[in-house]
């Protein structure tokens, strides 16, 4: 995301251009990959390449279209969006990625409690202990419901085996 507090029209249209370029690059990558899909002779025409080829071409053309449009596209701040508050994004991101990293090591209940506390912090809460307590109870209820109500196996807290 390119826009900052001072982001004027030029910076924001850069954001649209980056998105347009990303889509076109995805299209080029897909086209490249499409031609590496092996094809048996009998499938030559109706095989597994046709539809991916269409989608990839569509992505490239649409990327060009978006790039043309980027000149007129209003930037998010001009559309009434406040500037991105990065610390909040960082807290929420850290919460999710921590859960992904720790879920199978410290169990569902503890990793979900962390996710809850980090997200609440991202939304401006300063009462980390209270948030952790609420998150713990919520995760515990969800854990018990899934384990005993639905017979699903969620990773347990090590040592406690719970």
């Amino acid at each position: 995301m390119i826009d900052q507090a001072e982001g004027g029209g030029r910076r924001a249209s850069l954001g649209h251009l980056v998105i347009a370029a990303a889509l076109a690059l995805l299209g080029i990558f897909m086209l490249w990959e499409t031609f590496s899909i092996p094809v048996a002779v009998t499938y030559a025409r109706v095989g597994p390449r046709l539809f991916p080829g269409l989608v990839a071409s569509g992505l490239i053309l649409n990327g060009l279209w978006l790039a043309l449009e980027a000149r007129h596209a209003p930037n998010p701040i001009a559309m009434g969006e406040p500037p991105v508050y990065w610390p909040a994004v960082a807290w929420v991101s850290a919460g999710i990625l921590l859960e992904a990293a720790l879920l199978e090591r410290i169990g569902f209940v503890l990793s979900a409690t962390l996710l809850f506390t980090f997200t609440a912090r991202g939304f401006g809460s300063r009462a980390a202990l209270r948030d952790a307590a609420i998150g713990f109870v919520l995760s515990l209820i969800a854990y018990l419901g899934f384990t005993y109500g639905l017979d699903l196996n969620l990773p347990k807290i090590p040592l406690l085996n719970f």
Partner: protein
Amino acid sequence: MVVESVSALINGFSVALAPLGLFWAFIGVCLGTLVGVLPGIGPALTVALLLPVTLKLDPTYAFIMFAGIYYGGMYGGSTTAILLNTPGESSSIITAVEGNLMARRGRGASALATAAIGSFVAGTLATLALSLVAPLIVNLALRFGPAEYFSLMVLAFTTVSAVLGESLPRGLASLLFGLALGLIGIDLQTGQARFTMGIPELLDGIDIVVVAVGLFAVGETLYMAARHLSGKDEIIPISGSIMMTREEWARSWKPWLRGTVLGFPFGALPAGGAEIPTFLSYMVEKRLTKKPEEFGKGAIEGVAGPEAANNAAAAGVLVPLLTLGLPTSATAAIMLAAFQQYGLQPGPLLFANAPQLVWGLIASLYVGNTMLLVLNLPLAGIWVRLLAIPRPLLYGGILVFAGLGTYTLNNSTLDLVILYIIGVIGFVMRRYGFPVAPAIIGLILGPLAEQQLRRALAISQGDLTVFVTEPLSAALLVIAAAALFGPLIWRWRQTRRTA
């Protein structure tokens, strides 16, 4: 024909009115109202999160519950729109305008009442229309071959991209992104792995649950966090009598009916979406009202009409979903994924093969609507208290359930990483005004479109002209092209005229 569908509907009611049917409908409408009222989550996300959980449930009851969530989300969304001025869904934007102004003028109870009763009237009439129209379309659809189906899907792709969102290329970008995601995995016809980049977990493809939860829950949470709006939302307490006055009834019933007439066909067309009929209804009511001076200050017609149109369109969306297997909204796309989870394919054959499920589902819509009227009219005050949940805790809770639902799909933390990546993409899409729904529709409908494309070409022995030589298929493609390029050509002519 009509007699047959009436008896089928009566059989459906015997399913929906049985204790278990009532139970699951009740769970569905409660959950639906809950997620409709809460900002940040909606019916599409809720059904997606429930998909893995409902795998062991009888499909008939699962769909009765999903239908309750679908209708309940509409009712709950209007409550939030009126009292918080935060439209939960784009189709509640109009309600948020006039309804919130009514609430500020101390007529919040009347606004809630006309929204709830209007939703009930429109929902019931539109469900009736669904019961009558669906068998007709089924008869037509039985004549469709693969070429017609493919062209129909192309039409749905172009219209959802053109209708949802601010500009056509942005709608198409979202759609193409969804189509690209849908291609990842093993090609079922040849067994070739496509776009898996050597990652074995990707052979089964990216699950729709991960994409839906990523785009809706994680994307929305990141987006709201990034806005960092300090200060609390202003919740306007419900004031005024819960009963509408005689004058308010007199001013409401015609907008309800007009909204229904506008909403149902728009929902039933493959154009889909409830936004256009709500805007149209608002404009119609503004023109027809005897008190135009109240519009912009809280006119009851401006709540009654659009709310009715919104609910009628929601019922209309079920017509192409059930009869053709064609989803035209994000929730409908997730419901299609639910059918696939049970090995069912919506379409004309579903009416023949699983009449109990289809008609039980349709009958449960009448039942659910009645339940929702009771849940939302006298009990609105209870739901409103949910709005007082502080945002940090609300979004923390949303992410805990998002992570839980995603992890339990495959017991894989890689899914959580994919969830985050898709969430970041959803964040960027929101920030830059890209609609999210076309991506979900592309993901779920893309593989089906490819299947029909290859079937059609196998029949025609690789001759691509089959799509334009079959008259019905050609007509559908012409409409699709008109939806794509019509607005462009029109705009080009306008600018030439003014230049």
